[in-house]
């Protein structure tokens, strides 16, 4: 297969008076795996439909290897798409469902047979080939839809929240399988999700989209560890990121009325002023872990224990904070509590929400292949 670079240039999508996409520019390398992360109605599906050629953008261009393909219909492009709903031909067997895109393209019968069986095996549905979709579970039905998309060997593979209608555990399994399948392909893969954890599990690159605009792109763990704005940090944190308003003066930062701590590490040269300090839940602790820790004294608003981790919700000033700690630590609602944060873990944002400095990371590990 010929490898292609896929470029989106200054795309707008306007519906009525509303911008569904605003000045979107992106570049996808051949063989790259990309997660489009954003909340419901952020513009993820709109963007995928334009990439597929199903919808036309209001402004802007799509280039494949430098060639403008903006007006070319989906039928003439090498693209496959998987939707949130399980879409299959109800009256066709699983075999014929998977074979359908090849048949349309006039692929010889023996070649169709080989590819259908190979793809079915990859998705562990080889024993279901004679069945009808309605006889199968949701997970199996989505496997057929994915197989139909993969069998084409398209240069662009788009998946729009493909696992959202499946059980939690099934999602976990299929996600691992899909990752392995994607790695063997040369296609550009674009996968949309609302879930930070899913984006992290899929790895590759991430594109953070919000209200029709691209907020940040990069390697998934890099973006996770360096969210460029408070909005990116919000979209890319689960549990929600915690924010505290902070006043910096001289060499110290003041939190609320009574908490002061010295500006260490990455915060050493912060100019005086008002800031938003962000810290993820797993960096707030129920006990002191380090001499540098700052203590926040407050009351328990809620405690949740999920078997292996504890989530303590507290209010401090105008902030709602969540502490995520390993292990089981029961706390009564309304009881007094101290929570601890190491200032080294703070993301510092200015009042407009732009990142000023992020915590120093010691290592950025590369994915190891075995």
């Amino acid at each position, binding site marked *: 297969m010929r490898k292609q670079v896929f470029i989106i240039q200054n795309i707008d999508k306007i519906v009525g008076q509303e911008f569904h996409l605003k000045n979107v520019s992106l570049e996808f390398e051949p063989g790259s795996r990309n997660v489009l992360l954003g909340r419901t109605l952020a513009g993820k599906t709109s963007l995928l439909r334009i990439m597929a050629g199903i919808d036309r953008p209001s402004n802007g261009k799509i280039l494949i290897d430098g060639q403008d393909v903006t007006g070319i219909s989906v039928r003439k492009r090498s693209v496959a798409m998987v939707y949130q709903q399980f879409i299959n031909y109800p009256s066709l067997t699983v075999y014929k469902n998977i074979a359908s895109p090849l048949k349309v393209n006039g692929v010889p019968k023996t070649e169709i047979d080989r590819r259908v069986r190979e793809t079915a095996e990859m998705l562990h549905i080889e024993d279901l080939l004679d069945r009808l979709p309605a006889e199968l579970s949701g997970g199996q039905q989505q496997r057929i839809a994915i197989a139909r998309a993969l069998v084409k060997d398209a240069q662009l593979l788009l998946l729009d929240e493909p696992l959202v209608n499946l059980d*939690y555990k099934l999602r976990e399994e299929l996600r691992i399988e899909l990752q392995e399948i994607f790695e063997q392909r040369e296609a550009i893969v674009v996968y949309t999700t609302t879930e930070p954890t899913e984006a*992290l599990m899929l790895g590759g690159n991430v594109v953070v989209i919000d209200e029709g605009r691209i907020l940040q792109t990069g390697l998934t763990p890099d973006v996770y560890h360096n969210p460029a704005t408070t909005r990116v940090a919000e979209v890319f944190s*689960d549990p929600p990121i915690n924010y505290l308003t902070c006043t910096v003066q001289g060499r110290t930062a003041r939190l609320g009325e009574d908490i002061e701590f010295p500006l260490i590490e990455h915060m050493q040269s912060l100019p005086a002023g008002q800031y938003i300090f962000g810290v993820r839940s797993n960096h707030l602790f129920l006990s002191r872990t380090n001499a540098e820790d700052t203590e926040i004294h407050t009351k328990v608003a809620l405690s949740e*224990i999920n078997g292996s981790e504890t*989530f303590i919700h507290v209010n401090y000033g105008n902030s709602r904070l969540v502490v995520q700690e390993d292990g089981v630590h029961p706390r009564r609602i309304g009881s007094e509590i101290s929570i601890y944060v190491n200032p080294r873990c703070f993301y510092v944002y200015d009042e407009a929400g732009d990142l000023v400095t992020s915590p120093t990371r010691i290592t950025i*590990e590369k994915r190891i292949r075995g």
Partner: protein
Amino acid sequence: MARIELQEIAHSYISDPKDESDYALKRIHNEWEDGGAYALLGPSGCGKTTLLNVISGLLTPSQGRVFYDGTDVTGLPPEKRNIAQVFQFPILYDTMSVFNNLAFPLRNRGISESEVKERVLEVADILELTPFLKKRAAGLAADAKQKISLGRGLVRSDVAAILFDEPLTVIDPHLKWHLRRKLKEVHEQLNLTLIYVTHDQVEALTFADQVMVMYEGELIQTGTPQELFENPTHKFVGYFIGSPGMNFIPCTLDGDIARVDGAGIELDGEIAALGHKAQGKLELGIRPMYLEVHAQSVEGSIPARVKTVEDQGSFKVLTVNLAGNTLRAKLPEGQTVPGNEAWLRFPTQRTKLFADGRLVN
């Protein structure tokens, strides 16, 4: 409020069931205490919605009786059972205001307008819906709509229990936190019996005091989230709860030592003794967060080949191959990641033994 009791419930959707496999519910005998927060957790098709419908009265079971506070309600329809239900997709009157949506169940019962107002304002306050009372339901966000749906259950002062069927499935992650917090607060304040059906372990474990794991029409384990996490009595529970699920490795026993392809892993003496008496295939079980990983050989460690390391933000998942078995370990942020070879230690207290898919204990 009510204590709900299920006596020997079985249900088949087939009119003439022949064997066990024809039953969606096989034999459910269980009690839900007044004021408890329960979750029914299981995969699609395990029978959890069928069971919820038996409790609510949408379905009359083929066998067995349902009691509310000792009164037999088996034949009563939902509207006579004083329960409220919240479904996956909020059921609202889109063109009505939030106030009128909340008032609907009360007006339907001919309750006086002054009392309607009092109850609606009270519930709106609990759910932080007061600013939206005059707005039309149609224009609101998904979580606000789900709160109205919940509010319609709460306004009735005679509600015995609230049943939730996957209420957060269609909600974005950041709103899930907010809604779950609200649900917990409502439970704390009103002390209602809550039964929450879900396939999502995170929701079940964080919401409930008692989680019932369902599999193929049976309740296979009931316990606190911690009990289910630490001591799953079935392999299925070990796999289904926790992310990634529990690791399982086939083994043989040699005194107190479990042998995996020549390598030895020390077991708790009592468990090993029970293991020698147990029937069926023996397997070790260990949670990814308890599997110790070292970059160099340490005492009692065994080598394994590293397949992948994935950075999941606040932790890493290491996948290794040990004698043909794929194992996963959860590495805390900042821990050194081994290269091609990892040395694994199985802490004795965290290493479980399963015989024929059941916990040896």
